[in-house]
């Protein structure tokens, strides 16, 4: 069973590398952002699988932190280009 988890995790890592192409090609920043967002989810999935296959404590907490903060980068990008961070 743990081999299956690892196998799927391996597949996800490979998908991630393949998907980097979209980050690099763009063409708009939003495409890159979208791809980065997908990688966040993929990484969470990998973590869940690793947690199950290794049985190590704390791995789920890593996934929890990542999922909690998953939208920060997206909001950062959108608001940095829209909101302009004007000083007080």
């Amino acid at each position, binding site marked *: 069973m743990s081999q299956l988890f690892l196998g799927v995790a391996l597949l996800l890592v490979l998908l*991630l*590398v393949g998907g980097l192409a979209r980050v690099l090609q763009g063409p708009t920043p939003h495409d890159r952002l979208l791809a980065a967002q997908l990688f966040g989810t993929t990484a969470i999935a990998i973590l869940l699988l690793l947690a199950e296959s290794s049985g190590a404590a704390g791995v789920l907490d890593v996934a929890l932190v*990542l999922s*909690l903060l998953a939208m920060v*980068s997206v909001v*950062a990008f959108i608001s940095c280009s829209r909101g302009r961070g*004007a*000083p*007080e």
Partner: protein
Amino acid sequence: MTLEMLFDMALVGAVVVAAAYAINAPVLIAGVFVYIVFGVLLSLVWVRLGAPDLAIAEAAIGAGITGAIVLDAARQMGMERRRNPRLRRWPGWLSWAATAAVGVIFAGVFLTVSEGRGDLPQRVQAELPRVGVENEVTAVLLSYRGYDTWFEVGVLLVAALGVLALRAPGESPARRFRWDPPAVADGAADMLVPGGILMAGYLLWQGSRGPGGAFQAGAVLAAIAVLLTLLGRPPIARVSDRARDALLVVGFADFLLVGLVAVTLGGALFEYPPAWAAPMILVIESAVAVSVAVTLSLLFAAGGAAGDASEGGVP
């Protein structure tokens, strides 16, 4: 070749490819996105290598704070499409040869290193009952090498003071992002804020037994603060300058005070008596988490300068 190894190779490959692209991507913003992915991948590596404490820290700092800082900086410092200029001191082949040589030397040396020597891990474990925490990493950070960690909190304090010193006269270090975030984003943030605070509390409490601790908790709090800042409601603007200074310094000062209390109890500096060690460490960790959170969110919030050159120039 086992499946484990294939997975490790793929993961290392992904990390290396991401690192190379982060620096060399033709478009700056693409490199920055790949850099954020690099951070996430590194936290996967820490998990694989049995270091969940680091993985949590990396995830919280990378996804929450560094990501926002570099994206914001990239927005200001140009998202140019032209090939970025490089230094051309050496001819191409020579620089590649030098690069290859450096790589081979590093790899060669690293491969001669066997798994750790010495009996330090055993000693760490043997003395654990006297430390008052079960998580070995926390024990090293706050008890055995607590003095280092105190200095490290000092490093964060210096960074915060440096950023504060940079501001122009009369300028508030916290800026506001002026835009109308869609209600969806505000709503999501409203759900995440209590979630983040709970998570930080959990990590802080958990840190004495399992993966977690002051830095992780502080980083999660800071990430939530960054999110709110991005949505135009910077938490740091809510406190007075004095209160902010107090929050920045509380970790460093409290660490020192608890260390001195240990002296009055008859020990050396930072020598917590076994009976009191657990609560003392928790007191330190709570204060440190607060300072880490305020410092990191300040490092983000203070990024945009007055008289921002690109103000209004970028869509």
